[in-house]
């Protein structure tokens, strides 16, 4: 019997609220499949299963807030090849069984998710409205905040949205203001960082000329769906430069440095309603620039829609923050524990630049490094920035 537990989605998370099951008992789950949606300070997160199996039992009801590590469901392991329980022999239906009749809701299969904006979902939770029973008036039938409020106004008390035939859940604590919760989580993490991590800070000006002209050329021949942004080159260059200074890539845990297995670059993404998340792009050093761009584009879209995946939030080995679009010249980053470094990029600005004794004008970016003195020294940090600058002079090698 395998156990599926509430995952830790970052060092600052101690509990999460289960908001949706995407599986039903009897259903086969593959590795990496999204099996549940969990509400955290960082928004709703699609939680993936790291084991394959057949769902035996769902142990936690929708709406329940439980600590990290709590068993949420049990799975029967799948024996390879000649299994004792071939699919045909089990009475389990091939599709998830429809949920037990939720009072007024039209039948919706357990896997289906009504189209609704994140704000509408939040309002529905606050008002105790079952989304499946709301008529969406959006262009594609999406449920809007107004639809939810219309549904909520009739003063008949809406039944709690349990969804599954499980012991009725204790009321979820008021998670009404996600913005405030996220601010609290950021505060806790940054306070810990400033209290525990002896930061040092370095900055280096990098000529972005070669990278930007190479990029312009590239984008002329790339279809609109495959175009690159400068940040893709910067992320890849960071990942490659870390090969020279692996002591910047990893975690400080229990008084010791643990090198990262892989280079998973967290990208700081500001959310449109305020707040910040830094989901990881995995193995950036091995991806092509096109793949880095694709991954960045997807993760940005999902972060803004509050649809991140558990694997993206749990394991960045370093974080990059680019505040370049707001006119900021230099970022003085605060390291996200338990990571040991943060790389910042400011705005790329045309600057006077001396080349071979002559003054020219070049697009220049200030790259900064905040790093943990318990693990590395300025000398090594300088080496990292030098490698980063050199890589960006040769974009064709990225």
């Amino acid at each position, binding site marked *: 019997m395998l156990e599926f537990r509430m995952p830790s989605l970052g060092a600052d998370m101690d509990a999460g609220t289960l908001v949706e099951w995407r599986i039903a008992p009897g259903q086969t789950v593959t590795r990496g499949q999204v099996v549940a949606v969990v509400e955290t300070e960082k928004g709703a997160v699609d939680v993936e299963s790291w084991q394959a199996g057949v769902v035996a039992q769902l142990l936690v009801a929708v709406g329940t807030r439980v600590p990290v590590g709590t068993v949420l469901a049990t799975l029967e392991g799948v024996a390879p090849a000649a299994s004792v329980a071939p699919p045909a022999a089990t009475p389990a239906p091939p599709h998830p069984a429809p949920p037990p009749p939720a009072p007024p809701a039209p039948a919706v299969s357990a896997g289906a998710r009504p189209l609704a*904006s994140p*704000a509408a979902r939040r309002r529905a939770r606050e008002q105790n409205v079952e989304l499946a029973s709301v008529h969406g008036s959006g*262009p594609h039938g999406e449920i809007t905040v107004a639809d939810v409020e219309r549904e909520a106004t009739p003063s008949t008390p809406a039944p709690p949205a349990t969804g599954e035939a499980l012991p009725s859940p204790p009321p979820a604590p008021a998670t009404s203001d996600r913005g405030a919760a996220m601010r609290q989580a950021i505060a806790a993490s940054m306070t810990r960082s400033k209290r525990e991590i002896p930061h040092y800070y370095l900055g280096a000006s990098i000529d972005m000329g070669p990278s930007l002209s190479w990029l*312009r050329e590239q*984008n*002329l021949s790339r*279809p*609109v*769906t495959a*175009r690159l*942004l400068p*940040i893709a080159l910067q992320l890849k260059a960071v990942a490659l430069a870390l090969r020279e200074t692996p002591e910047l890539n990893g975690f400080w845990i229990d008084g010791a440095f643990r090198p990262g297995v892989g280079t998973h670059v967290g990208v700081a993404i500001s959310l*449109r*309603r305020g707040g910040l998340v830094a989901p990881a792009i995995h193995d950036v050093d091995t991806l092509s620039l096109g793949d880095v761009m694709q991954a*960045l*584009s997807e993760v*940005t*879209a999902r972060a803004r829609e509050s649809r991140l995946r558990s694997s993206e939030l749990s394991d960045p080995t370093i974080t990059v923050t680019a505040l370049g*679009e707001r006119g900021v010249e230099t970022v003085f980053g605060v390291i996200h524990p338990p990571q040991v470094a943060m790389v910042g990029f400011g705005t790329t600005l045309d600057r006077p630049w001396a080349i071979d004794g002559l003054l020219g004008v070049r697009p220049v970016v200030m790259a900064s490094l905040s790093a943990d003195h318990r693990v590395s020294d300025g000398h090594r940090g300088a080496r990292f920035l030098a490698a980063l600058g050199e890589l960006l002079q040769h974009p064709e090698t990225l």
Partner: protein
Amino acid sequence: MNPDAIRESVRRVLHAIAPEADLDSLGPGTDFRAELDLDSMDFLRFITGLHAELGVEVPEADYRKLGTLDGCVSYLAAHAPAASPR
């Protein structure tokens, strides 16, 4: 393709990227990149979204012509394929 339909498409794509923005209060000549606080990733998603809706490939050099609703409508009307996918 008629300008009203193009304007509707532009608004739909913008709404997908900045769902919280009140597009009705956005002036036709207002620089919406600044007004809606769109970064370069948002803007690229906007361009990609227009491509999906209208089939127009906007080269990078023309991005600056698409910074306002009116600018989008006139550019896209001039470049939309004769038989629109929608």
